[in-house]
């Protein structure tokens, strides 16, 4: 499910015009970890330019959102349970960590949250 979700991400985001508009000023690459696997998501002007699977040796990224594969599976349920319905909920409960340069993360927070939630109920 996790691999499927990340592979589906570019189409899920890029075909969603209001979401792309919401992220129009977002230009960054961020890391998402799902247990042992890591994924680098490159965003240009609100479009997902690339989703690459790690491991990475020396790849720069701005911020990282790390959780277990199980936590992401819960997060992507059509109606997630309390504590798994938002990345901040997961962070507070200890299911996720949000790290790195948080400025682009906070500047584009709604877009980033929507990108991460895009696979919800669809994978």
């Amino acid at each position, binding site marked *: 499910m996790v691999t499927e979700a990340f592979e589906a991400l570019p189409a899920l985001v890029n075909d969603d015009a209001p979401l792309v508009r919401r992220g129009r000023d977002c230009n960054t690459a961020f890391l998402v970890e799902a247990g042992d696997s890591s994924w680098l998501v490159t965003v240009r002007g609100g479009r997902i330019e690339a989703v690459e699977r790690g491991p990475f040796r020396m790849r720069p990224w701005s911020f990282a959102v790390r959780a277990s594969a199980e936590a992401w599976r819960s997060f992507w349920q059509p109606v997630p349970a309390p*504590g798994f319905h938002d990345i901040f909920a997961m962070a507070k409960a200890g299911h996720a960590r949000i790290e790195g340069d948080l400025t682009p993360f906070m500047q584009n927070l709604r877009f980033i949250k929507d990108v991460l939630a895009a696979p919800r109920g669809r994978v």
Partner: protein
Amino acid sequence: MAEIEPIVGRYATFTLGGRAHRVYFEEAGGGIPLVCLHTAGADGRQFRHLMNDADITRHYRVLAFDMPWHGKSLPPAGWQDEEYALTTRGYLDLIMTFIAGLGLQRPVVLGCSIGGKIVLELARLHASEFRALIGLESAAHQAPWYDDTGWLHRADVHGGELCGAMMSGLIAPQSPSEARWDTLWMYMMSGPGVFKGDLFFYRTDGDLRDRVSRIDTSQCPLYLLTGEYDYSTTPADTLSTAQQIKGARVTIMRGIGHFPMSEHPSHFRRYLLPILDEIRTGVP
């Protein structure tokens, strides 16, 4: 003809901290005064569904003011050189001054989030002056879910966009889209630094853990209702607070987050109406 809602809005000037504050408030209905306190960084529009609910306004005069700096209430003159921060004492003064200024006799107060927290102080300090108190998403203390409220007021982050984005996760997945985005819009509209200033009370000044056990619910009933999807004030926070207050009545609301009255009003009323009936009739 347009369908005109029963809600009426007016302005009144109150002296708070020795300074004049022009405060906007709305009301609808008649009967027992029900004063509603909005959440941090929002305004009284959160209660528009309650005010448009004939099952409530038949017996209750529902009132909601916009706190100074919020909604249609202006900050006091000279605000441009100040950093706004809500304190426990200032918040209590605002509520009691509003109630006295409008001549409300033994109202019910219903507050959410910061409003739910201050209800605990109303219960401790002014129990005899209220008919009942209702705290939504209320706790004596809650652990922060992000470290630095400074993010909410910075030159390089759009405050309104960020406030809306931060709050979006506190709404339950089941809440309908229109009500969800209404709720977020109020956050997106709040003035620069205002939400951050309210959180000084919510996160710092309003730690009430050493006080709530002194609340006497035999003088004034206290109802605490918290949504299961609220990770700001969690059900566990509310239950832990209630354990310290003899006679406090707790309900954990399913399928609701941090904004019951505005994120899912048709669902919330199922929890609220029986409580309002109980308060009115005295029959549980």
